[in-house]
């Protein structure tokens, strides 16, 4: 279904039962979740790879926990080897820089992509990844189109590039977020609803907080609440046409495509196939327009029309690439 609608690559999570026996839900094997959003049988990975390859589509498996201990790396290396040799996956996605080095040493023929959780923000990181033998850099959500263009230029000929285009926002910089969604949910989603107070750091600020800054301080927290809501998929909502609300880069596709970025990421995690399909169709429709020669304005207009939630688009907080928002 996704392949016939124009998906060019698949990525997935895989959590074997041995991992769950060791770590339960306490240490997630990847950022997708302890169980949900992952394949649990290697045979399923093999089947996914077989059917995808039949359509010429590569499959990547993500091992993007922020870090793995030495013991976990010892466990994972043979597992990744089997996925590559026996299940036929095309590469892995990692976040731990040390694990990247170790994978390249142990399995030099296996492409390794640097996850967005590696937070590749500058050209030094492009050089670092190229030296370590990464095959692709996945840009973090916080980068703007101009940054992506510049880093893509730095990566040209050495690394493939990938950028987010739809779904699954993150209020913080994921690569530097040391919190867990386990048991307690996302901290960012929680923050607007917990007791808080603005603290002045200087006597002058204390005086202003009682005066001219009282209202801006209140407005700041209101804006924060709105921003978090939009980044969290507008409360994880969908339109009556089944279109997922939330982080979106559709109207920036013209500029994004012009950067030469190799791949566009549609996040799916544990969402339904219908949501994935709906997301893919939206991106495909706008990308087809761009690749067919539409102007920036035409593509952006169509993106907003497809979403059909102009009030959300106009708010600005839903955009991945806000400097390019329509």
């Amino acid at each position, binding site marked *: 279904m996704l392949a016939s609608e124009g998906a060019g690559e698949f990525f997935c999570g895989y959590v074997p039962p041995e991992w769950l026996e060791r770590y339960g839900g306490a240490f997630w094997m990847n950022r997708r979740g302890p169980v949900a959003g992952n394949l649990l049988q290697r045979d399923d990975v093999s089947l996914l790879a077989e059917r995808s390859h039949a359509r010429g589509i590569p499959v990547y498996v993500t091992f993007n926990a922020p870090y793995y201990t030495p013991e976990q790396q010892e466990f994972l290396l043979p597992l990744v080897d089997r996925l590559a040799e026996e299940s036929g996956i095309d590469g892995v996605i990692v976040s731990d820089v040390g694990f990247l080095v170790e994978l390249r040493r142990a399995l030099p023929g296996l492409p390794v992509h640097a996850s967005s959780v590696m937070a590749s923000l500058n050209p030094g990181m492009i050089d670092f990844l190229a030296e370590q033998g990464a095959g692709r850099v996945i840009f973090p959500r916080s980068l703007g189109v101009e940054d992506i263009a510049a880093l893509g230029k730095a990566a040209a000929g050495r690394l493939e590039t990938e950028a987010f285009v739809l779904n699954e926002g993150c209020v913080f910089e994921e690569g530097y977020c040391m919190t867990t969604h386990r048991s307690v949910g996302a901290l*960012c989603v929680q923050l607007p609803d917990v007791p808080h107070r603005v603290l002045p750091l200087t006597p002058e600020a204390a005086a202003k907080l009682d005066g001219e800054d009282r209202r801006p301080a209140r407005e700041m927290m209101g804006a924060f609440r709105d921003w978090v809501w939009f980044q969290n998929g507008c409360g994880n909502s969908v339109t009556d046409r089944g279109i997922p609300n939330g982080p979106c880069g559709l109207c920036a596709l013209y500029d994004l495509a012009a950067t030469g970025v190799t791949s566009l990421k549609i996040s799916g995690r544990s969402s339904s196939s219908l949501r994935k399909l709906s997301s893919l169709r939206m991106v495909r429709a706008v990308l087809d327009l761009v690749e067919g020669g539409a102007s920036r304005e035409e593509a952006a207009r169509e993106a907003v029309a497809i979403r059909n939630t102009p009030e959300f688009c106009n708010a600005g907080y839903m955009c991945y690439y806000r400097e390019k928002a329509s």
Partner: protein
Amino acid sequence: MLQTKYDGAASPRESAGRGVEVGISFPFLAAPPPSLLRGEASLDDTLRGALSRNAHPALAEALLRHLPGTVPSRVYIGNETCERLLPTPQAIGSWAAAARGVRVALSLVLPPLSRDGLAKAERLVRALEGVDDAEVVAGDWGTVHRLRSRHPGLAIVLGRLTHKMLRDPRLADLFDSPLAPLPARSALCRSGELAPGFRALMERYGIGRREIDPFLQPLEEDEWEGREERLSVHLPYQFVTMGRGCLPAAMHGEGKGRFVAGGPCRNECAKYAVEFRVPVPGGNGAGRHLLALGNALYHAVPPHVVERVLARLSSTERVDRVVVAVPAAERQPS
């Protein structure tokens, strides 16, 4: 960093390994207090007027109890999460001149850098060249790579943001719960930094020091001692998370301009913080305080964690520096 008076005749570098250094970081001040740069500030003086009026005097007391006679001997300049707060090369030059001859060393703190930020940081590093005992604290591996490539002799410290471990204050003190599977407890109380791949990176880039947080969960012994590099431990704030969008900057922002990386900013972070109280699971209404400082969230660890960290200083070989962050301080006499 602080030196004990017993090492008063030694330079910070010479004292490493024999004494515990204490550095002071002012991440939101335009300039370090001149008295600190001149080596004239006591620990009490330095921490007086700090944001956390309860935590900092208690911290000063604990530090002086564990490290009698200690005085600040290293000043951290720059901010670990926001590149807008990078100092100018001229400011670094003047601070280095002020500190020269009084055995106060400088650490330039760099946040995770954008491409523009990296270019600015390189100019700052050039301003530090030739300054005795100066070092650069890097917040990302791209910066490490670039600086090592172009400045082979530079002392590069890995900042605590690069120390990948969960430290969610809502849960972290449960990470070593006996109810959890043993492998999970172990994995949550150590990083991946002793694995061969990470060790290879440390060697490749010549990293001799790394910074770590005061973790709520007790770290495994190997995490402290099973490494070659020296450790600097932060107090009293544990880093929790950061974004490129900034909460205080939204105070005077408008509409779509809020929370954009590199968006409008009036240095609100130097004037205001936001304190959140988040519930802890099973806490019967108990909560943990998080402090939004600029574009990051921190947690001031409780006294028993401070004590646990400081108690290590006499027994450990690897931890030889304490870094005390002072988010804001009343203006001090120059």
